[in-house]
């Protein structure tokens, strides 16, 4: 076992640990360690992204056939038949006749930097060629951009909902262990996970139709799709968000409730809590000041995972609810092997998740200095 030099550093700066987050220590920390840590993490970010891009590109190519065969089959279903030459010339145009690794290198290279003397730069004036979506007949980035803002917005609202709902439930449950309230809150927290999203979504839409005469399919009314969202119709938009929030939001609360509750229970019975209690500190202060802060750790560290499961979990739900976010576009792109589009969406989502992880690691490092020093980084 090698002892990393950083681990030794812990013992040389006991003052920092003992004093807690005193201003000087904080300043010092922000100046040196955190910056160093962030730089290190961001550097780590690059190989991760490269690995993701490789995985994504090859995973997308795994199913048999390619976009051209999918496209031709779709044409055949419409009653149009094309000959083999047309297929071959399409493959050549799209570069699908090259070996996969060559396609990959070209893909990554063009995204990173498309030279000024290329036709793409002359036509579109951009150095980052995400290539064309075959199915949409448009620049991939413009397709991704269309829904990116909304995807992030919706994900953020749902994430907020999950934390707002689940943390109080978890705190309550842990301070009232084995009470009826504990059980009931657990039940409420878990029921969303327990009913498969897609079927819950269909049932809720149908019930919405039966009760209100409107099925609330999709995030927008026709009027919004025509005129955009403004203050006067924002209320309608929020109405449309109810079912998605219930379906996607509740499906994630379970995990957060459980980890916070578990951590809280651990902390409540720890020595320092007992000491505090013995000293007469009020139960409320103990819970809120000591335990809760410690219990937030796993929640923060789970941010990346929560984000990832939100993107994945919301794909099926978004399809069922006809939400105009990226999930359904991704699914369709994967189905018809529109690989550059699928690749771009997966990459963007992956980057968002990695950024989420990065954030959570930085916050964690800030909250718990031990992690910062424990070698390698997460």
């Amino acid at each position: 076992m090698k002892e990393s030099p950083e681990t030794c550093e812990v013992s040389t700066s006991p003052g920092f640990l003992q004093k807690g987050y005193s201003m000087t220590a904080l300043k010092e920390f922000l100046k040196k360690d955190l910056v160093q840590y962030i730089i290190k993490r961001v550097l780590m970010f690059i190989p991760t992204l490269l690995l993701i891009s490789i995985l994504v590109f090859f995973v997308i190519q795994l199913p048999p056939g390619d976009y051209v065969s999918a496209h031709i089959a779709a044409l055949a279903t419409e009653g149009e038949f094309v000959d083999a030459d047309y297929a071959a010339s399409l493959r050549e145009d799209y570069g699908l006749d090259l070996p996969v690794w060559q396609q990959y290198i070209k893909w990554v290279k063009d995204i990173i930097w498309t030279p000024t003397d290329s036709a793409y730069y002359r036509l579109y004036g951009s150095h980052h060629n995400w290539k064309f979506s075959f199915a949409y007949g448009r620049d991939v980035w413009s397709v991704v951009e269309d829904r990116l803002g909304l995807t992030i917005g919706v994900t953020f609202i749902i994430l907020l909902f999950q934390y707002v709902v689940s943390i109080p439930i978890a705190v309550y449950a842990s301070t009232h262990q084995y009470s009826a309230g504990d059980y009931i809150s657990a039940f409420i927290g878990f029921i969303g996970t327990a009913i498969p999203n897609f079927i819950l979504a269909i049932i809720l839409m149908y019930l919405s139709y039966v009760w209100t005469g409107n099925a609330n399919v999709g995030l927008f009314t026709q009027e919004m799709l025509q005129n955009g969202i403004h203050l006067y119709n924002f209320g309608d938009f929020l109405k449309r968000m109810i079912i998605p929030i219930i379906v996607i939001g509740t499906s994630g609360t379970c995990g957060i409730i459980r980890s916070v509750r578990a951590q809280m229970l651990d902390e409540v019975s720890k020595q320092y809590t007992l000491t505090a209690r013995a000293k007469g500190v009020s139960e409320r202060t103990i819970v809120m000041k000591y335990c809760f802060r410690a219990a937030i750790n796993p929640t923060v560290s789970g941010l990346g995972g929560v984000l990832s499961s939100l993107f994945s979990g919301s794909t099926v739900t978004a399809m069922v609810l006809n939400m105009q976010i990226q999930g359904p576009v991704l699914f369709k792109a994967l189905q018809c092997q529109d690989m550059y589009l699928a690749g771009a969406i997966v990459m963007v989502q992956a980057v968002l998740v990695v950024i989420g992880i990065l954030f959570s690691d930085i916050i964690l490092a800030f909250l718990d200095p031990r992690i910062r020093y424990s070698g390698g980084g997460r």
Partner: protein
Amino acid sequence: MAKKLKTKEDYYLASQWTLMGRKLKKHKLAIAAFIVLAILYLGALFADFLAPYSLEEYDGIYRNTAPSKVHVMHEGEFVGPFIYSLEKTINREDFSVTMSENTEEYYKVKFFVHGCEYKILGFIPCDLHLFGVSEGSKGGSGAKIMLFGADSLGRDIFSRVLLGSRISLSIPFASAFISLFLGITIGSISGYFGGTTDIIIQRIIEVIGAVPQIPLWMALSAAIPAGISTVKMYFYMTLILSFINWTGMARIVRGKFLSLKNEDYVMAARLAGVSTWKIIWKHLVPGFMSYLIVSLTLGIPGSIVGETSMSYLGLGIKSPATSWGVLLQEASSVTDVAANPHKLIPILFVTITVLAFNFLGDGMRDAADPYK
């Protein structure tokens, strides 16, 4: 006094697992959940016996019919539980179907009736079923008892729920254990050795964790050859689900290793010359078993729900083989929700199972808490 001492002694000498069992008993909901799960798993084990019909008994008359009405009074006389056979009339104007009971003849519900053949536990041939209907009071045949109604091919949903539970309850279990094994092994290697190994493993975990599951599912499912048997499909699905799930476990294990590996007792063991593997499995893993159990129990319901999502996307088990995911997928049309709500009954089973695993997991977590 002596007795009390004895109990106290017992307490100190009891193994970790005995203690866990004792504490678990305090968590009433967990006990209830355990009983529910035991019933469900027993049901899956003896599904052939409990289900009155097999997966391949189609019946056009019963297409989409609501649950059988069990009567006890026939023409004013008490005859015990029985059902009537059904008659179907179709209207070609608006494509509606009307079912009516033929009350001329009744079919008694009997226990231990002979039906389709199957093998108990996979090897003892048998054709007995717990209950069913045989011939009618006037010697007629053709009535079927369908407690949960019929699906769109006229199959008994009650039987399909039971028979489907064999797949739905075991795939997640198997894949959770594979994930647990992968997670502990890879996570502990990463956490214990640190350095370059750690960095590489962390990158891999990050990558798998960051890529959305849908493309992974689709790609991995597409890699499964077409037209394979249900058993193989089952095997592949287990692998796919565990391949995606192990990363979470590995992260937890690694995190725990990082905080535990410098504890005094580990240092002591190392100084005493205990081998690395023994330190990991004997001294470190038990130290965070509670977390693993939480993750395991969280992983199982996650996989149950995951299986239903895969079925919805058409990536999982395919009919006539049945899982709960297949049943839900078949009931996920608007028309079913509107006109055939009985087809949604399988949701209850998924929900109850997932809740039960969650409650049991909570109870076990509390029980395994090393600080109490």
